[in-house]
């Protein structure tokens, strides 16, 4: 499925190039902004330049990885509206797997390698201990688990409400709140985006762990939370499937 998706994108080389340039430019603009901002202010919510950059790069890494893996979610609505989802259900492939990961995005794949190198380089500059590095990796994977749960919720919402385009974009906007350290937000918003809409656990905790700001209990709690959220999303998907009426087919 991913090979087909890659071939489809490579068939439209101009679009591939335009989107790639766009994504790189957006990254570059934000990266430059953080450097210029911190040059003027010296710190942001108590974090220095490298620490702020690590928050930003970790956000980008999780965001890019989830876009690479779950791009098919963005194409789900037409399937449900047209009744094409019937064909997915009738095939011997798990419908959730097909809807979630059936079309990996080659544009994001291209950016993942340099992004990972930049992230690990900045993380290295913070001189983390071996344990802090392990926490970082564990929470990074946990961030991806939470991102998976979010995407499954969006798919379920797509079946129940037929609205997906804006839901996924609102998810993107919400996660964008994690582009900078979540300490910039005041309570109660900080609490809401840390625990209720767990953007903090998903995007900020890995960077905080490498800085030694998360306790071992906090790491374990975060991973349990991620697992619980994922199982809840599976339950919601099953609930949504029962609501699917195949109305337009």
């Amino acid at each position, binding site marked *: 499925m991913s090979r087909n998706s890659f071939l489809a994108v490579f068939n439209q080389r*101009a679009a591939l190039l335009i989107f790639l340039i766009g994504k790189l430019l957006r990254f570059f603009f934000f990266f430059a*902004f953080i450097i210029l901002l911190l040059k003027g202010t010296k710190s*942001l919510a108590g974090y220095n330049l490298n620490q702020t950059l690590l928050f930003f790069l970790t956000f980008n890494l999780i965001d890019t990885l989830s876009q690479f893996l779950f791009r098919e979610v963005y194409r789900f609505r037409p399937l449900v509206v047209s009744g094409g989802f019937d064909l997915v259900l009738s095939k011997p492939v798990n419908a959730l797997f097909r809807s979630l990961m059936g079309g990996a995005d080659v544009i994001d794949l291209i950016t993942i390698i340099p992004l990972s190198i930049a992230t690990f380089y900045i993380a290295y500059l913070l001189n983390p201990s071996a344990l802090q590095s392990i926490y970082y990796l564990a929470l990074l994977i946990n961030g991806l688990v939470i991102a998976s749960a979010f995407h499954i919720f969006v798919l379920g919402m797509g079946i129940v409400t037929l609205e997906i385009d804006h*839901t996924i*974009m*609102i998810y993107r906007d919400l996660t964008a709140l994690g582009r900078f350290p979540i300490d910039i937000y*005041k309570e109660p918003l900080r609490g809401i985006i840390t625990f209720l809409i767990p953007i903090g656990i998903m995007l900020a905790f890995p960077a905080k762990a490498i800085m030694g700001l998360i306790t071992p209990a906090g790491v374990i709690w975060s991973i349990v939370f991620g697992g619980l959220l994922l199982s809840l999303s599976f339950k919601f998907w099953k609930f949504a499937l029962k609501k699917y009426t195949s109305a337009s087919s």
Partner: protein
Amino acid sequence: MKKYFQIFKISFQQEFSYRLNFIMWRVRNVLQIILTFFLWSSVFKNPQTEVFGYNQGKILTYVFGILLLRAIVFSARAVDVAGEISNGNITNFLLKPVSYFKYWATRDIASKVLNLVFSVFEITILFLILKPNLFLQTNLITLFAVLISLIFAIVLFFCLLFITNISAFWMPENGWAAQFLFIGIITDFLSGGVFPLDVLPFTLQRALYSTPFPYLLFFPLQVYLGKITGLEIVRGLVTSGAWVFILFVILKFIWARGLRRYSAEGR
């Protein structure tokens, strides 16, 4: 004129027919403002702080101003023009006694009015919740200059958006991609929509002032905040006006060339 008034009315009603879409779009705008607001609030935690020529009041006014100006300048229905070209629907309009530019300009105005009403409502709510210390401009001449710069900004954005969209005459499959790059990324950042351009090095700022982008959001807001005064305002308005003229000529030229190339695919 009457027919354009009817287009305005229909377009306004159409915006209401997709209410959930519209509300979601506004929610997204508010979320973006929340991020920017708290980012700058954190930088200017101490009210005495002054960075990049801003104090707390002025930077938070900038953030709220962006929400309002985005609604006025960036709200547009002409984003659909590329799709009309690639699926051949534009043929219907070419056969009708309606100016295609005026048709989309009218639809844009309907969209701006609706977005403006909602953004004023959102600003009021956010103001009551966040209680920011905003800067209020009281000089009538300055406010008049802001109004003129806004009119130029609206026309400038219309030209930029239309030029980007009619690239679909040459690459019908990639009209949306061109819009993502040129409008969604380049225009948004270089107009000061994401962060104030004052954070950039001075030489880069000066270079940017010779492009049309800062005149979309950044320049009107700088005039409002009193950061640009006197002859600088006049110079900015003249440059902005010149860009309106240049882009309009380019638009007409590309449109004429595009129409010659158009072969009504999909019809």
